[in-house]
């Protein structure tokens, strides 16, 4: 019902220019981000060459590595060399695995993406309707229950709810699988197409892998969505309450429209802007940093990898990770800006 907007070719053109402008804006942002990350990573205490050489290495062995890692040069020279590499599409090599940092990140990104997208979908499916109902039955019993639950969801730390779910559903009841990552032991992952196990196993009709990866996705996704759903409910509810008081809703009631049409078409659509903003921000944030959930469920995502890299002064992956996260944020907010136009026809670019 929102799509007809795109028929207007002038709008189409403007939208296109807007996207180009956004892409153009990327360059200064990424250069700024790379400079800040580059310097701050090197401010961490410790010496990467010593770590890479191992605990009993001799001074010569350390010096040799320091030269190879360019750590013997002044920092601006290091940064210059790094930028040159980046423009050639080389984001550096991890000293721990001696592989390009991008290999590792791209291998891990699908894991993060799958988990966060699934959790967010769960949270939106649960959160938006709950928020609408709570607003409609404002002050009623359902509203009370929803408010209590959302306060609980916000205040329970995610590592606690995760460990409790594991203890009860895996250890005591044997309902959930062992928290060992994305797929069961001894089940081979589906053939690599996108790296998203669920999508890949659907594409290759691999039923065993599909069931096992869904099975393993359940607990971490539920854990994550518990924390996500609470703010979504709260903002939907308050935004709906504002809209429900407006004149056009009263007019709609007076025109004899059904309550479902009024609530979901007239009111919700008007109340959606802040909800979308919140969801987008949360989504970008989670993609970059669900370290705790990844840790608890042995999920091989990007967050855990970059934390490991930081502890080991493995500069290249840290820098690549921050750049990727910045890129994702910009992408997500571009999509959100476009979505605004669909939700609110008054928004123009």
């Amino acid at each position: 019902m929102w799509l007809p907007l795109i028929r207007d070719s002038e709008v189409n053109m403007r939208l296109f220019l807007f996207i180009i402008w956004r892409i153009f804006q990327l360059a200064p942002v990424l250069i700024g981000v790379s400079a800040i990350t580059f310097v701050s990573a090197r401010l961490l205490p410790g010496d990467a060459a010593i770590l890479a050489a191992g605990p009993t290495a001799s001074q010569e062995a350390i010096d040799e590595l320091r030269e190879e890692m360019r750590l013997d040069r002044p920092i601006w020279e290091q940064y210059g060399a790094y930028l040159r590499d980046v423009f050639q599409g080389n984001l550096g090599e991890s000293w721990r695995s001696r592989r390009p940092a991008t290999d590792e990140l791209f291998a891990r990104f699908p894991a993060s993406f799958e988990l966060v997208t699934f959790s967010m979908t769960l949270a939106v499916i649960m959160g938006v309707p709950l928020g609408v109902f709570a607003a409609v039955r404002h002050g009623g019993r359902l509203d009370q229950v929803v408010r209590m639950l959302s306060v609980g969801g916000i205040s329970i730390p995610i590592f606690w709810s995760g460990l409790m779910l594991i203890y009860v559903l895996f250890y005591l009841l044997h309902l959930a699988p062992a928290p060992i990552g994305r797929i069961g032991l001894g089940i081979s992952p589906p053939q690599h197409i996108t790296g998203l196990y669920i999508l890949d196993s659907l594409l290759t009709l691999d039923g065993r892998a599909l069931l096992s990866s869904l099975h393993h996705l359940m607990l971490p996704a539920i854990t994550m969505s518990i924390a996500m759903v609470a703010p979504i409910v709260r903002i939907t509810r308050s935004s709906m309450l504002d809209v429900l008081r407006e004149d056009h809703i009263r007019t709609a009631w007076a025109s004899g429209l059904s309550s479902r049409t009024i609530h979901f078409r007239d009111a919700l659509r008007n109340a959606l802007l802040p909800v979308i903003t919140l969801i987008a921000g949360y989504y970008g944030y989670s993609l970059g940093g669900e370290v705790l959930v990844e840790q608890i469920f042995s999920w091989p995502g990007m967050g855990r990898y970059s934390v490991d890299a930081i502890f080991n002064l493995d500069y290249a992956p840290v820098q690549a990770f921050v750049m990727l996260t910045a890129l994702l944020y910009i992408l997500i907010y571009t999509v959100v800006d476009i979505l605004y136009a669909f939700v609110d026809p008054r928004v123009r670019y």
Partner: protein
Amino acid sequence: MRYMAAVLTGVLLGIFVIGSAVAAMDIVIAIGGDVQGWDPSTAIESEATEIGWNCYDRLLQYGTILAKDSSVGIAMADLERIEGQLAESWEVSEDGTVVTMNLRQGVVFKSGNTFTAEDVRWSFERKWNISGGKAWVLRKFGLEGPDSTFWIEVLDDYTVRFKLNAPNSMFLPGLANLPSMSIVDSGLLKQHATDEDVYAQTFLNTDVAPTGPYYVESYTTGSEIVLAAYEGYWGGKPANDRVIYKVVPTEANRVLLLKNGDVDFAYRLSPEIVSSQLDGAPGVNVVSVATPATVYFGLNNTRTPLDNVLVREAILYAIPYDDIIQNVLFGHATFPRSPLAPGLQYRKEIIPYHYDPVLARDLLAQAGYPEGFEMTLRYRIDISEYESIALYMRDALAEIGITLVLDKIGAAEYAQIRGSRDYDSALVYWIPYVASPIYDLGYNWADPQGCCSTAQYDNIEVKALFEQAKVETDPVKLEGLVNAIQKVVVDDAPLGWLYNPNWLVNMRDNISGYVFTTNLQTRFNTLRKT
């Protein structure tokens, strides 16, 4: 709407009741962190080293004996009996400087290439030349020269000769004990070499070129590494078809998985969690075995007032050793009675220091510090037991008037200050990778500027004795020299010997055939699962 909700719930519940499948003979190990790069010549992290330990063979190996303490109930490496692995036999020349190895014939690499002397030569050339490699270890062994042609020579297809600059008692034990002394498939690696990467390091970090009982079958980053048994292994195909390392970062989950029987081994569990969660747990077998490791209360002997031997003695008499061993390590450690690591030859149990705060206060007064002084203790934040030890130390030193300021640091910073000795005192973990008294004494006491001197202990007498001991080939004279060094060191009280930590093997009780090696790596082909 309601129907949809019901269907959704049904699907979710359905998904919850599907199990997973693993073959009965496969061995599954829960490890704490992701494994990065397992090139045996550059690997540092212990799981990465263990992959190399299993996929490759060395020239030599240790024989095995049953543990002396029969209650341990496992076999151990016999440090007094070196056997051939890829070498069938070897001769050491009269003057101790030429070692000739006769190699095993009929060994085939996983790639199908036949193992010959050229593989041995090229493997050692590779260790010597790659950055982050092992040239410095080989120099410790007495191999010397601008490149490897100066010390290794291929005599024929199955004979190689090493030339040492002097007799060296670390050479043979080193070849047997160090995972980095692995022999790789030179034919295969040359195929994967490029102009920038002549030793195929990129290939060998994520793949293998082995003769050993296993090879890396698959690798999913951040998730699992699967080792598969090599059918053509010259020692016989291992009984377990696969060994699966599963990355489980949360310690509590590794414990649950082991208790539940989902994994056969759980690595990296703290003594506290083992004694509270696994002691007496049905189906779980915890083996606690003494290792050659020592945790030091390291003192920087170059800083005042720690340069005063009386002050150091006072500190050593103020440490509540038993409290730390019982309450922090839950008995999974022993009190070190010798400056030499447990299990090493010529070890003399002569450490007199024990908990005696009255004597400690006396010694401190004699040293001219009746009011005490202030110093800092730096220790790693990521080792859970160190925090409790630091608190014990702070209280114990406060008893005799010394104010201990605690300074927690990350692993990266620790690696740096370990070399620069930028501390008054520090908690330092030390393990001699080569089970040789020369290796242990040399690093700790004879090389104050080297990588591993914890105390920066500098004593002319010890250095002179060590120079003699290094090249001594007569066992009786060598024992005399090693004993003399131990005596001088202990009298100087250069640092506190806190405890010898045990190695905790946390496994299911249906696993047998575990052999403990002093380098703390498990070789999986001896394991049986029933």
